[in-house]
């Protein structure tokens, strides 16, 4: 039983990170119909933000702020430089644009920073663990779970209580109508990217804290999983993205924990098969998005 609880903690910790990444993808997709393949690089920028701060010996709170700020900046700059000019282009053109940005950034990280992973050294206290009954819980996974929950709660409040948040929900349903009410499109889109960058930045901080290094491909793999999570949850659905993130995290951890090792090479295949199975039953995802499509 302790073993199951322990693995559940692991699943929550990993799923929470996927959920934050998936949510960032879903927010942007719901508003500008962009599947942002460069979202992983936003996360990587966040990781390098943490790295830069530790190189300069800044205290942990500043390192966290540096990582989050770097990711938000990267997201907003990406929108301003690349995607704004493409506004209204087809889903495919946008997707290809984001592919190109992703590739360019990866090469820039590699040649501008280093192809090798850069170590991120955190104080020993953060690498520790504590006991709850017979279960040992790591400090970082705990922080990770708590932060994820706070971030999700904060985002929900933001979307429900603030005018910008309401405008973003409205934009996800019918962007043109929102503009016909005089709401500035650029601001809503920029806010969506900033928010996705914020979530990717928080995810990057958690990720680097757990993994101890940042490399040019750091964001690529978790964001791949986050893509799966958004599709599973229902493309463009925010609550679906969260649910999908936790689902993918759980399948990944539990398949490692409970499947025999001989099946281990098929782990990703198992995750994807589960997703396909869910989509066969619910083609629009776990929580289908509300979207008025006009054109």
């Amino acid at each position: 039983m302790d073993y199951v609880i322990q693995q559940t903690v692991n699943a929550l910790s990993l799923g929470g990170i996927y959920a934050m990444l998936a949510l960032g993808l879903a927010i942007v997709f719901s508003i500008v119909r962009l599947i942002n393949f460069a979202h992983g690089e936003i996360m990587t920028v966040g990781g390098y933000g943490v790295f830069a701060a530790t190189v300069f010996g800044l205290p942990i709170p500043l390192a966290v702020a540096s990582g989050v700020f770097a990711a938000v900046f990267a997201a907003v700059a990406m929108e301003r430089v690349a995607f704004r000019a493409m506004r209204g282009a087809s889903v495919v053109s946008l997707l290809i644009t984001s592919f190109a940005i992703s590739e360019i950034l990866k090469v820039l990280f590699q040649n501008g920073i280093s192809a090798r992973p850069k170590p991120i050294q955190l104080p020993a206290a953060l690498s520790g663990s504590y006991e709850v009954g017979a279960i040992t819980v790591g400090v970082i996974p705990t922080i990770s779970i708590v932060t994820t929950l706070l971030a999700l709660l904060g985002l929900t409040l933001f979307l429900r209580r603030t005018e910008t948040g309401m405008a973003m929900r409205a934009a996800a349903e019918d962007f043109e109508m929102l503009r016909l009410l005089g709401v500035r499109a650029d601001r809503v889109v920029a806010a969506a990217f900033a928010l996705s960058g914020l979530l990717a930045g928080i995810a990057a901080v958690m990720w680097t804290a757990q993994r101890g290094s940042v490399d040019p491909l750091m964001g690529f793999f978790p964001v791949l999983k986050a893509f799966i999570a958004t599709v599973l949850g229902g493309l463009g659905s925010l609550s679906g993205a969260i649910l999908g993130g936790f689902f993918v995290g759980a399948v990944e951890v539990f398949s490692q924990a409970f499947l025999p090792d001989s099946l281990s090479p098929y782990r990703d295949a198992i995750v994807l098969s589960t997703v396909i199975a869910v989509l066969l039953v619910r083609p629009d995802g776990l929580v289908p998005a509300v979207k008025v499509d006009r054109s």
Partner: protein
Amino acid sequence: MRPVLTSLALMAGTAFTPLATPAAAQDTYKIGVMSAQSGYLTPYDQPSYAGFKYCIDKMNAAGGLAGQYQVELDVRDTRSDMAETVKVAQEMVDNGAQFIVSSADADPTIAAGQITQPEGIPTMTFAGTAPVLTQVGDYIFGSYPADNQQATVLADFATEQGFEKVYIVKSPDSAYTMGGPEYFATVFQANGGEVVGESLYSLNQPDFSAIVTNIKATEPAPDLIVTWAWEPDFPAFIKALRGAGLTTQVMGGDVLDTPTVRGLGDVVDGTYHTSGGFPEEGSAYGDWVKEYTEATGAEPDNNYYVNGCDIAHMIEDAVEAAGSTDPAAVRDALAAIEDGEGIMSNFTFAGTDRMPLRPVVIAKINADGSKDFVMRGTADPEKLPAP
């Protein structure tokens, strides 16, 4: 997307094409070099190539290999992509390469060997260490101490230190990450040790907490964990392990010999790993590090630089012994080298299946980012597990 990639690849290609060599009067020796400028091999290919080029340039300036042959390099980017690797190998062959140096891992070397073996062109990997790589054929050579040699030396060391129960963490995604721990287990068991559990992971696996939880639940508890995981998997694994409160001794392969791993701080304190060499003060390697740093302004912070240089020495020794650049003669001469003089360490190809027998170093990482020399040993050929 494609035009962007292609032009970047072209740029990378141009940047690394050596300037035309002026020695027209002399014979030229054309060596094709694969060096991934992007992707997972970059961290190994780039330093290997830098060290190789540095020593080849020195040899050219001193009159060429064996004082006679000016080396002309044909350097191409593989982007760490298998299809690209095969394509590049074919292009080099078509371009008249007489020797090929392939990427720093077994898998691309095997892929390239499929092209070069039938053509009869000697091919040497930058740093691939899986001994299976030479099974492609008799023209394929390793350069770095093979995994089974490293694992044998490490297993003997572990037994000597009194470890008895090992937990193995390996990945079927590459010959290196799978083979190293398995060779270790074979020798460790022959020494009387016990394997109490093992876990498989995937390269770039996002999360290691499930594996760590498994290790924790293992009965009897292991007193040693061995993995050949590399970056970024090893940092993620060791963080998760120490984060879960496990203080079990960890030992690993030569991929841990990097500033990144040493930069992880407390979590890697006391970790042992194998290595191809150790730049001790006053040794040939130590002097070379100083020389290279002064000449280029960049300090070689891993063994791939010096191993790249040693590859240049292996090729020169072979050409010298063969007395010609004929590919078949060079191959034969290379395979017959006994105790050739290298900078990282000496090398013997004679009597091996072309994975050179070289001494293996064991080093220990300290929390402050430094590493200590622990021992140097050569694997007992009797104990060496078969690839």
